C-alpha cells in the first residue's frame, strides 16, 4: 500500500510542473502566421456544406475497419498494371504508402509484391494490424492479410 498523502503530494507536484509556463521563441507566433499566409495564397479553408458527424472514443476494431476501407483503395491502386520490369519480382516490401490521413490518425498500407498481395495497416501510428475482413497469413512474426488478384488474361 502506498501512502495516500504522499500520493496526493506527488499529484500536486506533477500538476504544478506540467502547468508551469514554457518558454517560446519570440517570433514563434509570427512564423505560424507567415506559413498560414503562404498556405492561404494557394487554398483557403472553406466551411464544408455539412459538418462531419462527430465521433466518440474510437474502438480499435473500428479503427482497423476504417483503415481497411482506406487501405483497400491503396491496394487497388497498387494492383493496377505495373511496368514489366517488376513482374515476377521476389516477395518484398515495395511501398509504404500513405493511404490517407483520416482526421487525426495516419494509416499506412504496406504492400508486398508476390504472386499474392499481402498487406497490413498501421493503426494509430503505433502498431501493425491485419485487415479483419481478409484472409490472414503469417510472415515471420507479423500477421498480414492476403489479397488474391485474378491476373488479366490480356
Amino acid at each position: 500500500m502506498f501512502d495516500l498523502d504522499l500520493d496526493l503530494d506527488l499529484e500536486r507536484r506533477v500538476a504544478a510542473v506540467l502547468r508551469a509556463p514554457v518558454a517560446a521563441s519570440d517570433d514563434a507566433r509570427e512564423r505560424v502566421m507567415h506559413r498560414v499566409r503562404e498556405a492561404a495564397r494557394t487554398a483557403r479553408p472553406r466551411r464544408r456544406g455539412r459538418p462531419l458527424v462527430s465521433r466518440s472514443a474510437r474502438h480499435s476494431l473500428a479503427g482497423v475497419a476504417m483503415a481497411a476501407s482506406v487501405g483497400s483503395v491503396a491496394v487497388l491502386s497498387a494492383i493496377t498494371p505495373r511496368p514489366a520490369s517488376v513482374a515476377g519480382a521476389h516477395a518484398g516490401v515495395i511501398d509504404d504508402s500513405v493511404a490517407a490521413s483520416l482526421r487525426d490518425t495516419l494509416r499506412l498500407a504496406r504492400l508486398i509484391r508476390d504472386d499474392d498481395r499481402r498487406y497490413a495497416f498501421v493503426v494509430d501510428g503505433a502498431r501493425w494490424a491485419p485487415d479483419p475482413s481478409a484472409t490472414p497469413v503469417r510472415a515471420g512474426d507479423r500477421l498480414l492479410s492476403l489479397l488474391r488478384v485474378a491476373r488479366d488474361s490480356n
Partner: protein
Amino acid sequence: MSDLAIINRVLEGDVEAYACLVDRHYDRCARIAVRIVGNQEDAEEALQDAFLRAFNALGDYEERERFSAWLTRIVVNQCRTVRARTRRREAMFLDVDHRDLTYAVSVPDGDDWPDLERALAQLPDAQREALVLRYADDLTYEEMARITGAGESALKMRVQRAFARLRALLSEVAHV
C-alpha cells in the same frame, strides 16, 4: 470574441483573424507540446505544423466540439509524429546515452522540480502523454479519449502507471 466567431471570420476569407486563435491558444499548446516531445525545439516544430494543419482543416471543424480540444488533438498528433522522427534520429546515435546528457544539467540545491522533470522525461511516451493531457490541460478522461483515440479505462491505467513509475524513479534519486 469567441473562438467560433473568429473561425467564421477566417472561413469567410479573413486570414489575419487566425492570428487571434494562434495568440489565444499558443501558450497552452506549447505547454502540452514541450511536455510531450521533451524539448522546445521539437515542440515548436510540432506547433508550427499543428497550427498550419488546423488552419487548412478549419472547414472541417465541428461546432459541437470545443475548438481547444479539436486543436489539442492536432497538436498531440503532430507531437507523436515529431517524437517518432526524433526516435529515428536517436537510433542513428546508439553510442550516446541521452539520459547521461540529461543528467549533465546542473540542479539547483533544494529544488526538487528538476528531479521530477527528469523523471517525467523518462516515462514511456503513452504514459507521459496521458499525464500531460490530464494535468497540463485539465482535460477529463472523456476528452482525453477523444483526443488520443484510447479508451478511458486505458487512459486511467496509463496515468496510474505513470504515477507508480514516477514514485519509483523519484525514490531512486532520493537513495543516490
